[in-house]
C-alpha cells in the first residue's frame, strides 16, 4: 500500500497583487493530476463520517473514489444524486466545519479537500456538457417555490426529480438569490450560478422572474391558482443597521446595497452598465462576517484603501478563516476591538469621519462569545469616503405581512419544523435563512432538500 500523504494538495490561486484589482475568480481550481492526488488521500473508511457532516448527505467517498479511478462522469452523477448545485457548493460551502471536519484524515494531519474535489468534477462536467438524469412520470401536481436562492433551487430540483410540476417565483431580474446579488464574482463566478440554474430549469422547473410574492401575488392567491404546496425560501435579505447617530448619511451603504450594486447591477463596469458606485479613497467596512469580507474585498478591487472595523478580536471573527486570510493577503487592514459609535458628515451631508471606540472583551454573552465592552474615553475618528455596514440581515417582511396566518418569531423568521420544514399554515413549507436567520448556502440547501422530501410525501398521500 502506498504511503498516505498527510498534506492537502494546495489550491492554485491568483497572486494577491494581481487579484486585488480584478473581479476574476481568485481560486483557479485543480488539474486532473492534482484532483487524483488529492482524491487518493481518502482512506475509504467504512464509517464514512463525512457523509453525516454534509447537510445534503452527498455520498462523498463514492464520488472521491471515482476520481481516483478516473471515472469523472460517474463521480458527478454520484454528487448530483444528492446535490444539484455542486459548482456552487464546491466554492462557497464552509467544508472545514462540515464534511471535512468529520474526515478521519483531519485527525492524522489534514482532511481530504472534499470541497475542492467537488468543485473539480462540477467544473469538469461543465466543459463536457451536462448529462440529464432520467425523470419519473409527471405527477401533474403543482408546487410553487418562493425565492430562487439556494434553498428554493434545491427544493425545486428535488421536487422536479420526483416528477412534480415546479414553478419558482423570484423577485429580482436574475435567478440565484444571494448567489448572484451577494457573493462576489471573484469567489463565485456568475456563469457557474447561471449554469447550475440552467440545470435546474432543464429538469422542467419553470422560472418566473420579477414576481414579488407578497406584492405581485400572495401565497393564498397561489393556492387559488392550483398550487398544492408552497415552499418559502426567501432568505434573510433585509439589512440591519447599528442604530448609531449619522447612519443614514450619504456614502453609507448596507452591505446588501453595496454588494447588489456590484454583483447584480455590475457597477464595477459603470458607465458601461448604468448603476453607479464610487467608493473614493478610504472605505471602512463594519462587521467581521463573510459578508463583511466580501464587501471589503470588493471595495479593494474598486481601488480603495479598506479597513475592516470589528468589535471583538481576531479569534471571534465569524468569517471563514480562508476568507479572512484572502482579505489579509489582499491588503485589507483590520481594526479589531473597535466599534463605531457615530458617523459625522461633511458640508454636503456625506459621511466624512467614523467615530469609534476601543473595546475590550468581558465575560461570555448568550452567544458564548466574550462580550465586547467600550473603553471609556477611547474615542477616535477615522477619515472615510465610504462606509459599508455589514452587521447582519433579517428576513424580508413582505411574506409575513401578506400571509396573516403564517406564524413568525419575534426575530421575524418563519416558524418551521426543522425535520420537515412544515410551517403553521397548511400546505406551506419554509427553509433556509428565512427560518434560521442568516446562515450558510449549504444549510439553506439542506433545508430545501428536507422540505422537498416532506412535500413529496404530502403530495402522494
Amino acid at each position, binding site marked *: 500500500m502506498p504511503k498516505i500523504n498527510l498534506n492537502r494538495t494546495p489550491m492554485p490561486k491568483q497572486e494577491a497583487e494581481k487579484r486585488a484589482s480584478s473581479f476574476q475568480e481568485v481560486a483557479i481550481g485543480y488539474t486532473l493530476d492534482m484532483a487524483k492526488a488529492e482524491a487518493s488521500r481518502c482512506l475509504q473508511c467504512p464509517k464514512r463520517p463525512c457523509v453525516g457532516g454534509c447537510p445534503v448527505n452527498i455520498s462523498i467517498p463514492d464520488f472521491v473514489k471515482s476520481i481516483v479511478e478516473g471515472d469523472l462522469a460517474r463521480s458527478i452523477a454520484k454528487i448530483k444524486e444528492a446535490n444539484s448545485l455542486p459548482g456552487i457548493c464546491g466554492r462557497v460551502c464552509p467544508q472545514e466545519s462540515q464534511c471535512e471536519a468529520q474526515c478521519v484524515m483531519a485527525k492524522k494531519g489534514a482532511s481530504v479537500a472534499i470541497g475542492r474535489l467537488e468543485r473539480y468534477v462540477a467544473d469538469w462536467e461543465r466543459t463536457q456538457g451536462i448529462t440529464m438524469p432520467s425523470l419519473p412520470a409527471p405527477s401533474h401536481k403543482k408546487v410553487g417555490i418562493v425565492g430562487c436562492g439556494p434553498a428554493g433551487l434545491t427544493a425545486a430540483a428535488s421536487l422536479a426529480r420526483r416528477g412534480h410540476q415546479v414553478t419558482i417565483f423570484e423577485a429580482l*431580474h436574475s435567478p440565484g438569490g444571494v448567489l448572484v446579488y451577494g457573493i462576489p464574482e471573484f469567489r463565485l463566478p456568475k456563469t457557474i450560478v447561471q449554469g447550475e440554474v440552467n440545470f435546474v430549469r432543464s429538469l422542467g422547473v419553470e422560472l418566473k422572474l*420579477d414576481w414579488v410574492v407578497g406584492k405581485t401575488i400572495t401565497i393564498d392567491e397561489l393556492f387559488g391558482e392550483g398550487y398544492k404546496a408552497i415552499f418559502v425560501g426567501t432568505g434573510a435579505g433585509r439589512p440591519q443597521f447599528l442604530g448609531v447617530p449619522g447612519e443614514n448619511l450619504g456614502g453609507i451603504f448596507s452591505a446588501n446595497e453595496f454588494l447588489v450594486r456590484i454583483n447584480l447591477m455590475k457597477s464595477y463596469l459603470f458607465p458601461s452598465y448604468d448603476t453607479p458606485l*464610487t467608493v473614493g479613497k478610504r472605505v471602512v467596512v463594519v462587521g467581521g462576517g463573510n459578508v463583511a469580507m466580501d464587501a471589503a474585498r470588493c471595495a479593494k478591487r474598486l481601488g480603495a484603501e479598506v479597513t475592516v472595523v470589528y468589535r471583538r478580536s481576531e479569534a471571534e471573527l465569524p468569517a471563514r478563516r480562508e476568507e479572512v486570510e484572502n482579505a489579509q493577503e489582499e491588503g485589507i487592514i483590520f481594526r479589531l476591538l473597535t466599534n463605531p459609535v457615530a458617523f459625522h*458628515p461633511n458640508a454636503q451631508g456625506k459621511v466624512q469621519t467614523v467615530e469609534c471606540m476601543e473595546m475590550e472583551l468581558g465575560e461570555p454573552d448568550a452567544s458564548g462569545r466574550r462580550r465586547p465592552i467600550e473603553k471609556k474615553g477611547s474615542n477616535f475618528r477615522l477619515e472615510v469616503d465610504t462606509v459599508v455596514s455589514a452587521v447582519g440581515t433579517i428576513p424580508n417582511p413582505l411574506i409575513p405581512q401578506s400571509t396573516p396566518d403564517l406564524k413568525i418569531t419575534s426575530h421575524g423568521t418563519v416558524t418551521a419544523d426543522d425535520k420537515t420544514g412544515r410551517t403553521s399554515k397548511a400546505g406551506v413549507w419554509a427553509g433556509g435563512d428565512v427560518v434560521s436567520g442568516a446562515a450558510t448556502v449549504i444549510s439553506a440547501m439542506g433545508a430545501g432538500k428536507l422540505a422537498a422530501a416532506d412535500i413529496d410525501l404530502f403530495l402522494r398521500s
Partner: protein
Amino acid sequence: MYRITEKSPLAPNIFLLKIAAPAVAKKAAAGQFVILRLDEKGERIPLTLADWNRETGEVTVAFMQVGKTTRQLATFRVGDSIANFVGPLGKPTDIEKFGTVVCVAGGFAVATVVPIARAMKAAGNHVIALMGTRTKDLLFWEDRLAAVSDELIVTTDDGSNGRKGVVTVPLKEMLEKGNRVDRVVAVGPAIMMKFVAATTQPFNVKTIVSMNPIMVDGTGMCGACRCSVSGETRFACVDGPEFDGHQVDWDELFARQRAFVTEEKQSLEQWQRQMAEATAAQKTA
C-alpha cells in the same frame, strides 16, 4: 419582457406610457409604484403608478426626462419592450373616510395623485385637489383630476394659468380661514412636499407624503431608500413610500437623493455622446 402598448406626450419632457404587465395591473392600488429596468445593462428605477386596467392588463406610468434612464426610455416606441417591470410595490395609500381630504400634486406627480384622489372620493371623502407647476405648458390632466375631486385649484409659479404662486399659498389660506381639512396627501418634488408639511404642521393636520429616494431593488433588500421618520430608520420601498410628512427628516432625504449626482451626470453625458455618434453614423450611411 414587457411591451409598450401606448406612448403619448403629456407636457414638454413628460411622457405617458402604457405597459402590458397583467400581474401588476391585477394587484395595483393608489400610491404604489413599480421598478423597471430597460435592458441588460440598465439600472433599476422606481416610477409611481398613474393608472391600471385589470381587464386589458395594462399599467400606466408617467415620467419626466431627467437622467440617462428616463431619456433612454423616452426613445422607446409603441411595440418596444422593456426588460423588467416589477410591482406593484410599496404600501397602497391609506384610504378611508376621513372627511375632507386635500390632495396636493406638484409637477408631473399629478399622474400619481389622480388615482389617490379617485380612491379618496370613492371612499366618501370631500376631495379638494390642488395642483401646481412652474408654468402652464407643464400642466396636464386638470380634467382628470377635476373628474375625481369636488374642488380643483390650479397654481402656476408664473401665473400663466390659475392662481399665481405655489401650492402652499391656497393651502395655507384654506387652513387659516378655518376650513375643515381632515387630511392632506401631497405628492411631488421633495422640496414641495417639505413645504406642504411645514404649512400644515401649525394646524395639526395629518399630512401624508410620498417619499422618492434613490432605490435599487425596491423590495426591502438594499436600504438605499432608507429615511428617518420619527427618528427611526424606515425603508421607503416596503415601509412606505407614504409617511407622515411632519415626522420626516427632509434634509437627510435631500442629501441621500444627491448621493450620485456626479455619476448621474457622467452616465447621461456618455449616453448623449453615443446617441450623437449613432445619429452621425446614420447620416453618413
